[in-house]
């Protein structure tokens, strides 16, 4: 048998001299991933260090940072690069996702951070990105500057590989130093990126740390959240809530908790020619990362039409999921996931017995399940993730309103297959109901650069806007030595 590989991950700032412990994560009999682990003392030392060295990243130009991030991304896009190979080799072992899903998912995700895309991130949040370099004339008079939060703290989730890169790179772009806690479910990718980025731009080598600490360790968490200027927390609502309670009221808190996303398919996308392609894209959103991302659909709303019945749509979607299962196998479920899937299927079966028009399609091995529900009013829990989905018909888009209102606080992405004639009207409706991202069907798991995650500004959250008002400028003239 091949020997177990030991890889030291995470990232500690290059010149940090303090002591810290390490922790090993074992992934089967194949890989041990060793990460820096913080306790109360080491977290205080590390936070003090990052604060003290913030000047280094602060003095770099955004252009320089973009150049370094772009170089790092290009290395990780290069199939021959040793770290790309390492990621491709180990991410399937760590996360359980299919190798093909990882390979394709990683490439398309990393491409979101190439230089031209990073400029899009900047433009999405700043009318004039030069405010990151210094005071710039403001539209309403005076001057304005985007001052980086010295140290941002990120608590990442591990549901989707490399997810942490989004906030890590966002903070970096606006010159905020970062301390990030990786999830035990995917502790590899952000550390690997940080390491490579620090090599590429030595001026960034003391600007971040990618580490681990045990969630719930009171003293460590109090120290870190108390010293950080902003805390971004990803995870289920319970985890995020626990973190929120420990963050001081004076510290900016960015909660990214549980979400519900959905797809909407118009009748026009279901004619005999288009239906194959439409359902292929619908299935792609379900299959990639087994709906573990907040942006993955849990329910598909299908407009009633003359071409094809809801049951037929459900059956064809099920067939597509079966084909995709052969191409991109679903990951092994935990015991808890399996039992909640069984429970959901059981509920669908009861509903089926009660109502003739509902129908359940389920794979023999439980690798996917499609539940067709004609009556939107009876839609309960739409799915239980891991390739389970409800397909629900509607005659008029307004019929979605009751369901959306019930879910309003957790709504996020809507994937649409809709003709131009309906696109804006339906988008207005969905935006009104609380949807914060609308994209094409098949693209749900790949937000575009500059995405306003849960309706927030990705970059803006890591800076503090500073106004230099007109009055100060005016008085400056008064006191100027060169004034006649």
């Amino acid at each position, binding site marked *: 048998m091949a020997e177990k590989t030991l890889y030291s991950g995470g990232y500690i700032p290059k010149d940090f001299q303090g002591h810290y412990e390490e922790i090993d994560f074992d992934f089967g009999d194949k890989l041990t991933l060793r990460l820096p682990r913080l306790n109360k003392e080491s977290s205080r030392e590390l936070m003090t260090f990052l604060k003290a060295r913030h000047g280094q990243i602060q003095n770099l130009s955004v252009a320089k940072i973009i150049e370094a991030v772009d170089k790092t991304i290009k290395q990780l896009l290069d199939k021959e690069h040793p770290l790309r190979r390492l990621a491709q080799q180990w991410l399937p072992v760590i996360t359980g996702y299919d190798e*093909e899903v990882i390979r*394709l998912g990683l490439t398309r995700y990393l491409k979101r951070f190439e230089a031209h895309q990073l400029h899009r991130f900047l433009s999405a949040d700043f009318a004039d990105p030069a405010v990151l370099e210094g005071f710039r004339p403001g539209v309403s008079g005076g001057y304005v500057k985007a001052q980086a939060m010295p140290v941002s703290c990120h608590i990442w989730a591990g549901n989707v590989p490399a997810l942490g890169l989004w906030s890590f790179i966002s903070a970096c772009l606006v010159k905020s130093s970062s301390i990030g806690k990786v999830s035990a479910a995917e502790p590899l990718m952000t550390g690997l990126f940080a390491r490579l980025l620090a090599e590429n731009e030595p001026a960034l080598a003391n600007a971040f740390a990618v580490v681990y600490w045990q969630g719930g360790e009171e003293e460590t968490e109090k120290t870190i959240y108390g010293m950080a200027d902003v805390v971004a927390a990803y995870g289920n609502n319970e985890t995020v809530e626990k973190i929120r309670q420990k963050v001081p009221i004076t510290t900016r808190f960015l909660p990214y908790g549980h979400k519900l996303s959905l797809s909407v398919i118009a009748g026009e996308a279901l004619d005999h020619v288009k239906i194959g392609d439409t359902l292929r894209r619908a299935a792609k959103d379900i299959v990639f990362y087994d709906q573990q991302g907040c942006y993955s659909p849990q329910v598909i709303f299908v407009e009633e039409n003359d071409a094809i019945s809801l049951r037929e749509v459900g059956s064809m979607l099920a*067939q597509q999921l079966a*084909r995709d299962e*052969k191409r991109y196998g679903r990951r092994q479920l935990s015991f808890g996931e399996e039992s909640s899937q069984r429970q959901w299927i059981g509920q669908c079966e009861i509903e089926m017995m009660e109502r003739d028009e509902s129908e359940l399609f389920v794979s023999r091995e439980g690798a996917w399940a499609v539940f067709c529900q004609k009556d939107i009013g009876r839609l309960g829990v739409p799915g239980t993730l891991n390739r389970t989905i409800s397909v629900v018909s509607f005659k008029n888009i307004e019929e979605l309103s009751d369901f959306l209102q019930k879910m309003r606080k957790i709504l996020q992405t809507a994937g649409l297959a809709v003709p131009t004639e309906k696109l804006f009207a339906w988008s207005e409706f969905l935006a009104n109901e609380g949807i914060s991202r609308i994209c094409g069907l098949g693209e749900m798991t790949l937000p575009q650069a500059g995405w306003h995650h849960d309706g927030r500004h990705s970059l803006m959250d890591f800076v503090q806007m500073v106004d230099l008002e007109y009055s100060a400028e005016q008085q400056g003239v008064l006191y100027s030595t060169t004034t006649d």
Partner: protein
Amino acid sequence: MTDLLKDQVILVTGASSGIGAETARQLAKHGAFVIINYLKNHEQAKKVEEDCNQTTHGGGWCIAADMTDAAAIGQMVEDIQLEFGRLDGIVFNAAFSYKFDAQNRPYPWHINWDEYAKAQKQIVAPLHALLNLTLEMLTKKEDSRVVVVSSNLVKRPIVTYHTYNVGKAALEAYGRNMANELGRMGVRVNTVVPGMVYPTKATADTKEETKELVLAQTPLGRLAKAEDVADAVLFFLSPYSSFLTGQSLYVDGGLTNQ
């Protein structure tokens, strides 16, 4: 599994990876003793051998031989003769080292005829040499079988890999002619014709756009897996195909359906 091929000795060429490796495993599961021919990758061939030896009735033995080298083929056949004294079937799968790069493939007007000739030499000549050398063993008994692995690009060149596709066309013609010639001598010769098989070493770097091109036109909506091809090979080696010779079986999800 079954005992369909129990006690039979079957040579699979190019069996250290991809279709060949999967075929070897599949045949062993059905009781065959598989001779795993490979070119260079000893470690991988050894792994296939191990897998074959772990089956209930089947077994495996790996043996290196460059199929483009007549002397090496001769040595291999001699070794088989010495070790087993019999050969019940051949799966001719050895791949010719062709770079499947759809985006950068050459236009035919840039290809010198020598390259077509070289492709045919690498694709067809090894089968000719192998059949000549093994004929004595194959015709010693009734119902010996030869299965040739071709490509559906011959019938439908959805991607025009010119030298490769023309070489495979010659291979298919060679197989059909041999079927007629050897039928009365107790040897059946059939061809398995896969579409794009993914993942294999040959398609590992195939761009997604090429895969999508094939996929979009495939009625069964997915690409072939090595297992799909191995199943068709098994059929031609099994008694279930005992009255079939000179036939082609397309394993491409219906892409070449006419």
